Every structure is written in structure tokens, then in C-alpha cells.
């Protein structure tokens, strides 16, 4: 059966004028130790769910009250260093880094400039090595494989043969059929 001590979060709130029981005092001491350990960075790996909830609330309350402070000696050292740098002197132990040095404004520009130069060089290389294909390609196809004017095949047409289109179409067809077959069946041809 659960008792008030076992369940401090959900149980009834005791009267503040009533003397604490030994169990309550023991629980308070144990929780105080838990808080101390947490603040010094030694939080125990295992604890009850109630203790963990209380601990979180305690941590939040402490943080909102501004109770996290540096040691007085450390505070004095940081102020001293900041004042030294403000008047142009070097910091005593180099512990405080000037904000200008910590976040250099030029570094991103250096990165961007170098990257832009690299990209421009890549584009220039691609552009310079691109051509030279077209001229060679024409030379790879035999003239007899290509579609072309029939002038060289037919020659000048005499007036007496002006209407003799039948013989000319026969000649053109036979010539182009040779080229077509050659292209399809030659070793280098396309089927």
C-alpha cells in the first residue's frame, strides 16, 4: 500500500505548521544530496521518476533565478582582460578572444571567392574543349551514303530530254538504292 512518503507528488499537501516526520526529513536530505550532485555534474544514472521530475523543476527554478555564476576570481580575470584589450594592450593570459577575431568577417568572402574561381575555371575548361566533333563527323560518312543533290548524277539536261523525267528518276533511284544498301550492309554501315 502506498503511503504519503512513498508518493510525495500526488499525495495530500501537509500542513506547514506540522512538524516534519523523520521519513520526510530523510527524504529531504536525500533529495538535497541529489540536487548537490546534479549541480556539480555528478547526476546519478538511476533515480525514481518522482525524483527526476523534482530535479528538473529545481534546475529550471535555479536557472531562472540567475544563480549560475562564475567564481569571483574568474569574473575578475575576465573583466581585467576585456579592459586591457579595450585600451589596445594584449590580454594577460590570452583567455579572452576579441569578438572581431573570433568571428572574422573576411573568412566567408575568402571561401566564396576561391569557390567562384574554381567554378569559373571548370566552366572555362569545358568551354574550351567542347568543339571539334562536327567537322570530323562529316568526314566519317561516305558521300554515297548521304542524301544529296542529283546534279552530279544527272548532269545538264538537254532541251530534247526536258520531259524525260522517267529515265532520270530511274537513275536517281538506282544510285540512292546502292548507297542505301551499302550503308545498311557494309561493315561500318547502320542496319
Amino acid at each position, binding site marked *: 500500500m502506498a503511503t504519503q512518503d512513498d508518493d510525495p507528488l500526488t499525495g495530500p499537501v501537509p500542513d506547514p505548521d506540522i512538524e516534519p516526520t523523520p521519513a520526510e526529513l530523510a527524504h529531504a536530505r536525500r533529495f538535497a544530496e541529489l540536487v548537490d550532485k546534479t549541480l556539480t555534474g555528478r547526476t546519478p544514472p538511476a533515480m525514481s521518476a518522482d525524483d527526476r521530475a523534482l530535479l528538473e523543476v529545481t534546475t529550471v527554478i535555479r536557472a531562472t533565478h540567475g544563480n549560475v555564476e562564475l567564481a569571483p576570481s574568474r569574473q575578475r580575470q575576465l573583466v581585467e582582460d576585456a579592459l586591457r584589450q579595450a585600451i589596445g594592450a594584449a590580454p594577460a593570459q590570452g583567455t579572452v578572444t576579441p569578438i572581431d577575431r573570433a568571428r572574422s*568577417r573576411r573568412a566567408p568572402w575568402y571561401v566564396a571567392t576561391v569557390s567562384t574561381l574554381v567554378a569559373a575555371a571548370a566552366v572555362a575548361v*569545358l568551354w574550351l574543349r567542347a568543339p571539334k566533333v562536327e567537322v570530323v563527323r562529316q568526314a566519317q560518312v561516305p558521300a554515297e551514303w548521304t542524301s544529296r543533290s542529283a546534279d552530279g548524277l544527272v548532269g545538264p*539536261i538537254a532541251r530534247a530530254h526536258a520531259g524525260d523525267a*522517267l529515265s532520270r528518276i530511274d537513275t536517281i533511284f538506282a544510285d540512292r538504292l546502292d548507297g542505301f544498301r551499302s550503308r545498311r550492309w557494309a561493315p561500318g554501315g547502320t542496319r
Partner: protein
Amino acid sequence: MRHAMRHAMRYVTRAVVLVALASGCSSEREPGSSSTTRTADPSDVIDQDLMIALAQAKNFHHKAKVYMTDGNLASATAAVRQILSLPFPRGAAEADDVRNDARALLAKLLVSQNQLDEASRTIDEGLAQSQRESFFVANLYTVQGEIHEARAAGFEAAGEPGKASATDERRAAISSYDRSIQINERLQKKLMEGR
């Protein structure tokens, strides 16, 4: 101000990265860009479509020849007309030559049927549609000269009133023959230079 600069820097860096990636991709996509053994464009070579168009033109010419042998000039004319509507592959140089030759024959058939205006229109259309000079274009001018001669003969037959027109037509015929001769000379010279 600093916020804006940081934004600008972010965009510059992204743009540079994109350009670098694009360069890398394109260089990967063209591993054989220096290759000299690429296949020619389909429009450059003789393909099946061109052979079909030429075979069709050949068949219509043979059909027209049979009709002409039978004395059926109207059917012969219709057969030759069908050559003009044959679809040739885009950019095929043979298309102009075959169509111009068909127009020359068509015009001669029309002249033989005394349809001189229709014959003249057929030649004019062929000359207007030709993309370049060729022996077939020269032949169109030759047939144009024959049409002018046929007109001159018609005016001459009309007697004295048609004499002036006949003279004009004969001059036009000479002009057409001259154009034909000039084109033939230019093309022959070009062919000789090419050999």
C-alpha cells in the same frame, strides 16, 4: 547589414556549388567527346523514308508513261501531279530535284493539251519553291521557254493583230533559255572545280 551580408554569402556559395556540380555532371556525361566515330545525323544519310519517296515517284512516272503511250494525257497528268504531294524526309536534297523534274514533265503535258496558263503556273511555282540552283531548275527555265514559244505560235496563228504579242513571247522565250544556259554553265563550272 551583417544579416544581409550573411544571406548574400549563402547564395553565392550555393551558386558556386551548383555550377561546380553542373560542370562535373556534364564532364561525366561526355566521356567520348573527343571520339571521331559518331554516327551521322539521320537527316544526312539515305534512309528508308527517302527510298520510299523515290520509289513512289518512280512508280508514278512509269504509270504516267503508260498513260502517255495509250494517249491518255489527262490521266498521265494526274499521275505526275501526285509526285508533287509525296512526303520526303525533311532536308532531303533529292526532294527539290524530283519535284522540279515532275513539274517540267507536267508543264510539257499541259502544253500538249493546250493548257498554257496552267503550264506556266506550274513552272512559276517550281521556280518559287526551289531552294537552290540545279540542273532541274535550269530545265524548268527550258520548259518555260517552250511555253513562251507555244504562246508565240498561238499569237502568230491569229494573224496581224497577234504579231506584237508573238514577238514579246519569243523574247521571253529567249530570256528563259538564257537563264537556263547560265545556270547550266555555273553548275558545270562548279562540278569541274569539284573534281
